[in-house]
């Protein structure tokens, strides 16, 4: 078992810098998820930790050992690939034991590890099948089994669930979670799906354009996003953003005037603004209510999901706003909707997109 530390890690292809200096600490036994839009460098970063990509500069240590110059096999890591990378000509048994056989482990030892992994993943009855005879979920488990038998210090997962259908994805999510609880190993998991990140992670690292936007626990990222990018990326449906101007008000409060003239009075929580400072107000759809004072908008589309109703509406200045309302709420397209706004849940971002006020409801 081991912690993973990244110090000023960069990666360039020619003149193009893909990874722009990443510092990160992943504690021993932590489940860390790298999340971000496609092309953000999350898979590249994982492959650099695995040793499949060179590190241009910076240092990487696993369990206190510097690893930048160590071969993949010497790093004590095991990787589960997006495509599973099962060897099509080998049985499940051979797939799982291949690496051990090739690196000179004793047959008895291999057999013991194989049994243990197969039991843990319910693969015992499938050991003599070829990958082509397995379902998607079974293939996934074989790929995980191949990682387990190596008894690595760190497990690396590269979007392992993206080839599965929705139901299976939910099931495998819990299975991997259980595996983490059983093995207590450090796991690093890459995904573009923020729901996957929220449900599985102990720590989420949000990456964008080769840099870390924010790292923290799922709820920390949800309640206290550091900037517009993280605020927009974490949470579903997405946070609403409305442009406006802020000005200091009495008792340390801040008054925000939105584009359509509506006013929202926020608790300043120690933050200061200058008069008529341009800002972006962020508020999640689940923190708005249909009915009640505050904002007035025209309904463009209503989605009745039974458990809830989603209204997609437009403010007078043309900006869009989504409201997650009670399942019984009703409003026809074109009608006017009064939207209630909870000032305590409002986030405020300055013109550089940096959070000035967190709408953290847990406080």
């Amino acid at each position, binding site marked *: 078992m081991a912690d993973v530390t990244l110090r000023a890690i960069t990666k360039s292809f020619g003149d193009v810098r893909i990874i722009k200096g990443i510092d990160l600490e992943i504690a021993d036994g932590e489940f860390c998820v790298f999340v971000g839009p496609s092309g953000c460098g999350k898979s590249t970063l994982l492959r650099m930790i695995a040793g499949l990509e*060179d*590190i*241009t*500069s*910076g*240092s990487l240590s696993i369990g206190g050992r510097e690893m*930048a*110059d160590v*071969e993949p096999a010497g790093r004590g890591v095991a990787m589960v690939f997006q495509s599973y990378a099962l060897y099509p000509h080998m049985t499940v048994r051979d797939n799982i034991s291949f690496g051990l056989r090739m690196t000179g482990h004793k047959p008895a030892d291999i057999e013991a590890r194989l049994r243990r992994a197969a039991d843990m993943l319910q693969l015992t009855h499938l050991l003599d099948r070829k990958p082509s005879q397995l379902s998607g979920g079974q293939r996934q488990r074989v790929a995980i089994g191949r990682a387990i038998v190596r008894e690595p210090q760190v497990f690396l997962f590269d979007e392992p669930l993206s080839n599965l259908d929705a139901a299976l994805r939910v099931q495998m999510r819990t299975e991997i979670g259980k595996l983490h609880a059983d093995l207590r190993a450090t796991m690093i998991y890459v995904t573009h799906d923020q729901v996957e990140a929220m449900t599985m992670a102990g720590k989420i690292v949000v990456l964008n354009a080769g840099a870390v936007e924010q790292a923290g626990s799922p709820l920390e990222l949800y309640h206290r996003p550091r900037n517009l990018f993280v605020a927009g990326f974490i949470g579903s449906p997405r946070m609403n953003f409305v442009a406006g101007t802020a000005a200091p008000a009495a008792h340390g409060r801040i008054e925000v005037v939105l584009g359509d003239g509506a006013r929202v009075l926020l608790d300043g929580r120690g933050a200061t603004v200058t008069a008529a400072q341009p800002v972006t107000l962020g508020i999640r759809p689940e923190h708005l209510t249909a009915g009640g004072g505050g904002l007035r908008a025209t309904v463009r589309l209503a989605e009745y999901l039974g458990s809830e109703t989603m209204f997609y509406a437009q403010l007078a200045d043309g900006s869009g706003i989504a409201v997650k309302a009670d399942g019984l709420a009703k409003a026809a397209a074109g009608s006017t909707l009064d939207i209630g706004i909870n000032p305590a849940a409002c986030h405020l971002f300055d013109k550089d997109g940096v959070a000035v006020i967190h709408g953290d409801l847990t406080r």
Partner: protein
Amino acid sequence: MATHRSSRWSQRRLAPWLFLAPGALLFLLYVIIPIGQSVWISFYDWDGLGAATWIGLRNYADLLDDDSFYTSLRNNVWWLVLYLLAIPAGLAIALFLNQTVTGIRLYKSLFFFPFVISQVVVGLIFSWFYAPDFGLLPRILGFLTGTETAILADERYATFGIIAAGLWPQIAYCMILYLTGLNNINPEQVEAARMDNARGFAMLWHIVLPQLRPATFIALVVTVIGALRSFDLVSIMTAGGPYGSTRVLSYFMYEQSLSEYGTAMGYGAAIAVVLFAIMLVFISLFITRMLMQERNA
């Protein structure tokens, strides 16, 4: 800033060269180096046994005064131009056979058959087919026109007779390339085009042929190379005759340097260099295109 380039993992740096070494060395020895040697030899007067004398570009100057060279060159152009007919002909047969009726697989195999047979046998078959007095073709021509023509003995027709023999397997080759291409056409595109009311030739031109471009490229490569490599059929069917009228560069070179009486190594090498230069134009075109695909991959 410490950089960790691939100076590590020596195994992975050395490995490709170890894997390459046997094949690459043999290929260098037997293919790449001999090309340079041939160019070198072409500047010498050499009978293959005695001492060689440097004569600079004399061999090339002599070529320009040699009628046989122009005959060969002209025939090579005919080969190249007429061989290209194999591409549309192959496409036509492929379209004809691209159906699913009982036994069609066997038909496809049998249509492909001529390509499997060696050119020597193809040459013999067509020699028999063209033979005066009893050959099948003179009989048919005799029946149609009233005069039997001995094709391979007639300077006017001999080269075209040989080219026709060469086209037979070449058409089969292009056909199989197009059959495979047709098999891999995206059926939804064809269906979408049908909804757009494209049919017949419009469908072929706008929808099918663009999807067959990889097949067309390979057909073009193998046909051009095949045309310029023509040697076997000329040797078997006419040995360059009558009166040297069916010579092509490859056969002309063989006569000068490699046959029983051919000892003009320098002169033959010069002919080979000319043929190589012509081919190099096409090879460069092909390689450029393949390189562009590699870059895009």
